[in-house]
């Protein structure tokens, strides 16, 4: 259904459409090699899981340093393209991903907002040096014939959003967050950015139940000649991903990966309470034994207690078994 009558075709829209076309033609240059991605998904060495975990780390760092979504998306694009092209050892994955982030940041962010590499490495809890990072950046740049302005799904998302503005205002931030969620799964790197972005747009429109906005989506699809089959395929996958992302269930964080470094003084005091008391427990007598036979009345007892003295008032028992409550070890390192 292409009911063009309902759409304003003014100069701005025309320009947008043209820009869309241009980017569409360009995007193919920035696609990671599909065979490479498939290989990663099937292999054990640098598995999909590793890549996904690293991308999540990149998102954490992006968020922490206040980098834009653009930086993140670009970094993921570089990473996927590189990984699809080169087989690297798992131990180098951190270095590669951090290089991509730094490269992307240099392109997108203002110089004053760039985090220095030593800080990047320190916060990212990586084990390589600043010069390692610099060298890796060079390698990645070479291999990718790195051109700064890559066309990514975000590019399309922004364009679609602007086009849709003629009708209604969608939340760009929400769309960006959803895109980020998708990018954390390697499967979505196989999609063409234009298609992925469109799938996201459709998702949002359907979720908001804005029927007339669907026309915008159809219009774009027609304009770019995106096959229905392809769009449907990715829409389904996007829907699945977003339902996981939005689920209220918490995922248990993978705790062991993080290092908790504290200063020596704090570390020294962490275990000061663990000492077992030397004095053995003195059980309190039950009511029959008069505890106050020689002494004066208890100064504060109010005589409210009942005389039945069954030990253990909580019939329900403890919620958490003791072995879960007590922390036997705390892992820490000296700073």
């Amino acid at each position: 259904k292409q009911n063009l009558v309902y759409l304003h075709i003014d100069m701005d829209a025309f320009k947008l459409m043209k820009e869309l076309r241009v980017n569409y033609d360009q995007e193919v240059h920035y696609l990671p090699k599909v065979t490479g991605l498939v290989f990663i998904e099937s292999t054990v060495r640098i598995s999909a899981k590793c890549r996904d975990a690293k991308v999540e780390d990149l998102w954490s760092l992006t968020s922490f340093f206040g980098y834009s979504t653009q930086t993140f998306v670009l970094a993921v694009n570089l990473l996927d393209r590189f990984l699809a092209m080169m087989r690297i050892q798992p131990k180098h994955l951190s270095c590669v991903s951090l290089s991509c982030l730094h490269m992307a940041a240099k392109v997108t962010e203002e110089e004053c907002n760039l985090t220095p590499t030593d800080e990047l490495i320190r916060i990212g809890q990586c084990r390589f040096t600043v010069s390692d990072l610099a060298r890796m950046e060079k390698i990645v740049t070479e291999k990718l014939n790195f051109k700064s302005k890559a066309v990514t799904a975000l590019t399309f998302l922004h364009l679609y959003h602007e086009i849709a503005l003629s009708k209604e205002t969608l939340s760009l931030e929400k769309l960006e967050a959803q895109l980020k969620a998708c990018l954390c799964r390697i499967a979505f790197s196989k999609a063409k950015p234009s298609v992925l972005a469109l799938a996201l747009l459709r998702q949002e429109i359907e979720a908001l139940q804005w029927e007339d906005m669907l026309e915008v989506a159809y219009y774009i699809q027609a304009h770019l000649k995106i096959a229905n089959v392809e769009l449907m395929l990715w829409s389904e996958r996007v829907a699945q991903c977003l339902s996981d992302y939005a689920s209220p269930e918490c995922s248990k964080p993978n705790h062991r990966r993080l290092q908790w470094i504290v200063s020596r003084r704090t570390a020294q005091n962490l275990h000061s309470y663990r000492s077992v008391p030397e004095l053995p427990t003195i059980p309190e007598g039950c009511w029959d034994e008069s505890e106050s036979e020689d002494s004066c009345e208890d100064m504060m007892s109010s005589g409210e207690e009942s005389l039945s003295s069954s030990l253990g008032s909580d019939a329900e028992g403890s919620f958490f078994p003791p072995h879960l409550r007590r922390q036997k070890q705390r892992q820490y390192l000296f700073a």
Partner: protein
Amino acid sequence: MSAISASEKVDGFTRKSMRKAQKQRKSQGSSQYRTHSVPVELSPLPQLKDAPSTEQQELFTQKLQQCCMLFDFLDSVTDLKSKEIKRATLNELVDYVSTNRGVLVESAYPEITNMISTNIFRILPPSENPDFDPEEDEPTLEAAWPHMQLVYEFLLRFLENPDFQPSIAKRHIDQKFVLQLLELFDSEDPRERDFLKTILHRIYGKFLGLRAFIRKQINNIFLRFIYETEHFNGVAELLEILGSIINGFALPLKVEHKQFLMKVLIPLHTAKGLALFHAQLAYCVVQFLEKDPTLTEPVIRGLLKFWPKTCSQKEVMFLGEIEEILDVIEPTQFKKIQEPLFKQISKCVTNPHFQVAERALYFWNNEYILSLIEENIDKILPIMFGSLYRISKEHWNPTIVALVYNVLKTLMEMNCTLFDELTSSYKADRQREKKKEQEREELWKNLEELKLSNKPLVQNNSHGLPSVQNNNNNNNSNNSENQDRSPAAVTANDQDPDVTVAASESTPCAK
């Protein structure tokens, strides 16, 4: 006291090591002394082990009586022989009571308690150092310790002897005895307090009739300490005993005990010298909570009420205690206090003192606490988010920044959507704030420019006549505003028609 050179000082204060080196001699004090001119000599008695069994009782009594003679240890030259005899005798008595059965006959009890009372019950000497700081200074030790130690040892063995009969002993180990014993806990000598601790513990265990009295007296001591004197050396030892008592409480907890927790133990956290007994105090509190989890809410609210505001060292201790409490907390109880608690934690995390911030952030390394946070992430994350984000940018200490990253990452992994929502609303807030600040700067700039451009037209207002101030500008200097400002309200001051009041601004210029 030799002068200390400038190089040995740090920032104008003497290094601790220098001060300690000056105090070479260990200070000793005692209230045992005699002023006899005639030295009293002890005549050595035959050994108990050598005596025939029929005479042992009598010999035992004689030795006990002999040991009632006190000697002056501050004087290191007189009575040396007699001191040695007493020491040897005491040693012998200790052995005798430890290794033999059938030694404690009824008639021995009063002799024993008399000897003990004579030796240990005394008014403690006044502190040599009125500004005694338990953490920095060496304590003043009891000079008569060579004898006193053995007397304490003897008392302990006496109490622990398998033949010991509380029913007989209670005639002599009575409230008066216990009261005097408690007063000794104020001794500066830690060895003495250690003995007293064990002894009182045994007495509490064996003398059921004295238990309520002991508890009441300890109450009094603590209350006096908190609200009146802020001085008592034996708080830690008493708390240790209480720990073992609390551990043995029967359920349901008596009201007396609960009141003790709220009215004594919690306020005890406000003491200046908390560092000396905090470990024991925290242990007591946690024991209470293990006995009765419904006490969690009042305890935590109590701690929050007394949260240290100016002492960072104390704050670190409080945080440690909170972690211990959280280690044993029940999830239903956690829900009740999570909001006020995390509001406080959120403040601690942004504390410029790095140890406080570290300790608070380290909570996220505790798996059980994490599981509690996870269950209640929708309530907790909004409280923590803003401060965490802020200090990730602003804190001076790099270790803290790295820990904040860990915490944010952990929270992010717990609930992505909520985290993203909070991120975007935080960013939106920051944008708005920035905009407001820019507008404010603009406004001041405009005002400045106005003032500058109107300078030549300003009249000098030195008549002493008051010029009416603009309502909004409290910090204005006494310059009068330009008459061209529209629409200016003219003052009713006829004598000075040049003075005008500027119209109230449409937007307030308040800072």
